[in-house]
């Protein structure tokens, strides 16, 4: 199988750690990522209005490129995954959007949502398998209490993302167990970090992030892992008195697989 990969804007710049560790681990685990040539930014937010056609085009272009190269597209950033998966759902199920997009793009073969969009975590769980992954862990992260921070975009809307139980997710907690650490469940793990308000309303971010940080710390977490660069930014840069460290899940994966030797990071 070819694992076409969509890095997205932030992973090429401010969240390189997320991307570099992901490629390294994928290579080691037998699913090397093949970056899509000429990908464009997904737009970061899902365009909700049914008449927003232009805003959906970059996601469709990535989906078409993946369709024409084996049919699988792997994403990593929560926002990219959210946008691309939802646009794919529109292309499969919303006739008017499907028709307008195809009219505009004038593809040789019209696109109707055929590409399978997989989040990197789904590849770990469903293709590699958590049991097989466990067997490859050489440096279990024993004694570390990790709070998984899902945020909002990775899971919602549950019907479209079909990633995990929206209110009682367990994929990241199971991942944490596999790499030898202890998952800490806290109530705000699937609530929003205030997202793009980082740009327009920093005080709001601070108020919301303080609650999330306190909630996780009270539950016994010593650190966070996340899949989203904006969550990581808000959790760190807009924290209050409680400031648990934040890593991307691919960074702790690389650590557990012993891929950080030689001071590469």
């Amino acid at each position, binding site marked *: 199988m070819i694992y076409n990969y969509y890095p997205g804007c*932030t992973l090429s710049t401010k969240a390189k750690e997320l991307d570099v560790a992901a490629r390294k681990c994928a290579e080691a685990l037998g699913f090397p990522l093949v970056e899509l040539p000429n990908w464009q930014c997904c*737009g970061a*937010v899902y*365009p909700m*209005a*049914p008449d927003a056609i232009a805003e959906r085009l970059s996601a469709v272009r990535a989906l078409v490129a993946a369709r024409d190269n084996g049919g699988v597209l792997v994403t990593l950033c929560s926002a990219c995954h959210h946008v691309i998966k939802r646009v794919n759902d529109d292309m499969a199920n919303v006739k008017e959007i499907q028709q307008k997009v195809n009219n505009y793009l004038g593809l040789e073969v019209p696109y109707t949502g055929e590409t399978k969009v997989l989040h990197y975590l789904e590849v770990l769980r469903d293709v590699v398998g958590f049991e097989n992954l466990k067997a490859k862990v050489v440096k279990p992260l024993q004694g570390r209490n990790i709070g998984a921070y899902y945020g*909002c975009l990775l899971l919602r809307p549950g019907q479209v993302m079909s990633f995990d139980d929206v209110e009682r997710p367990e994929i990241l907690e199971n991942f944490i167990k596999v790499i030898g650490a202890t998952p800490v469940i806290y109530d705000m793990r699937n609530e929003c970090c205030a*997202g793009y308000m980082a740009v327009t309303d920093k005080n709001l971010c601070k108020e919301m992030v303080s609650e999330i940080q306190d909630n996780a710390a009270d539950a016994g977490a010593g650190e966070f892992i996340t899949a989203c660069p904006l969550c990581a930014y808000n959790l760190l840069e807009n924290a209050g008195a409680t400031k648990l460290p934040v890593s991307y899940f691919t960074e702790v994966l690389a650590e557990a697989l012993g891929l950080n030797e030689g001071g590469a990071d």
Partner: protein
Amino acid sequence: MVINNKERAEMLRQLAGTNVSLCIQCGRCSANCPVAWKMDVLPHRFVYELLNGGNVDVLLEAKSPWKCLSCFSCAERCPKGVSPAAIMEAVRLTHIRAQGNNKLNPADLENYDDKMPQQAIVAAFRKFNK
């Protein structure tokens, strides 16, 4: 062109693309919204005012759409599958699609710190600028 309240409601319903008539007015959207405490008009009103006899101007004048995080908590947790988030988006678009109505400008970029992820900037410009 002057359009009346009923026509404005229909335009917003089209732009939102969500079926407001399914609403049972349980208020779960507002109860779940993580920024409801910062809003002047709560999420459930965005559905309610689009039903027959509603007052659309309340929504068009509200500050709430500029506080909305598009986190989809309201839509996910609605027992009838209505999306107040999509109505917030429709109101935002009604404003920013009008000439000269951007709420965020490229000059504002100078105020951001070095670590601000592109994702945040792209998202904010999608939400507040046309």
